[in-house]
């Protein structure tokens, strides 16, 4: 069945799914906000954001706020579309498995 194919491997992890969820409803989110919301360690979050960046689902923007370096993330158009498809696939699976 083709819909099964829409279950996106890139989102097959709690943290990656969480990052995308936050970025779907916020223009951007910085590293510490994501860390707090998802309750993960620095290294864990960094590796998952890297994976999503590699898939071109999010952009990493590095900038300075005063003297402090600040990393923030933005969902790309491709990422938004992929996430939407993933959600639709999840919905479909749930509807048809009960």
């Amino acid at each position, binding site marked *: 069945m083709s819909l099964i194919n829409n279950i996106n491997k890139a989102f*097959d992890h*709690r943290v990656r*799914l*969480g990052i995308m*969820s*936050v970025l*779907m*409803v*916020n223009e951007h*989110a910085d590293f510490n*906000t994501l860390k*707090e*919301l*998802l309750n993960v360690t620095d290294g864990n979050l960094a590796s998952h954001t890297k994976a999503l960046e590699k898939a071109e689902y999010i952009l990493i923007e590095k900038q300075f706020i005063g003297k402090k370096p600040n990393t923030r993330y933005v969902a790309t158009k491709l990422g938004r579309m992929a996430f939407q498809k993933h*959600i639709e696939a*999840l*919905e479909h*699976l*749930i509807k048809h*498995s*009960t």
Partner: protein
Amino acid sequence: MNSKDYLKDISEIKDLMNKSSRFISLSGLSGILAGIYAIIGAAVAYVLVNNYSQGTLFLDGLVFRWVLLDLALIAFFSIATAIVLTTQKAKKNGAKIWDISSKRLVVNFLIPLITGGLYILIILGQQKYGQAGALMLIFYGLSLVSASKYSIGHIRFLGYIEIILGLICAVFPGYGFWLWVLGFGVMHIIYGSWMHFKYDKKQIN
């Protein structure tokens, strides 16, 4: 992964979307108290106007200044109560009080509110005070509607009600006082109680 895991995924997505974009720690109790302050304040204004001003309000009169002070006190105590109780509730939920979602809520609430407040002060300065009550209700309603996108609890509907009351008040300025009491007093108490029992109580249990 079976369907149970997918359901968990969906609810986690929903939860994160809400937590990251909406400020959910608004206290229902502060709504009830704001309503009570409004009713007490209105009663004070009623007594002032009827006993010391023969039922009419002169813009440059002493009574008018007392009524303005009365209004300022209602606003001050309502806001102070909301801040204190909401901070408490946020702490209990382990949420931050001053994060992006609460900032967005406050900014979107204040833009129509301050615009309306200044506008009312300007027209009062021009001796046009017949519509002040209606404008307070309308602008407050618009502030609630504007803020509602960043909170839960269907604050939007309270906003709609305030706007409708404000428009009625504009048509019948003679009932302004009672519509004001209904909008700022009674509606806050009803809405606050509903919020309190729907959200606050649930989190305690």
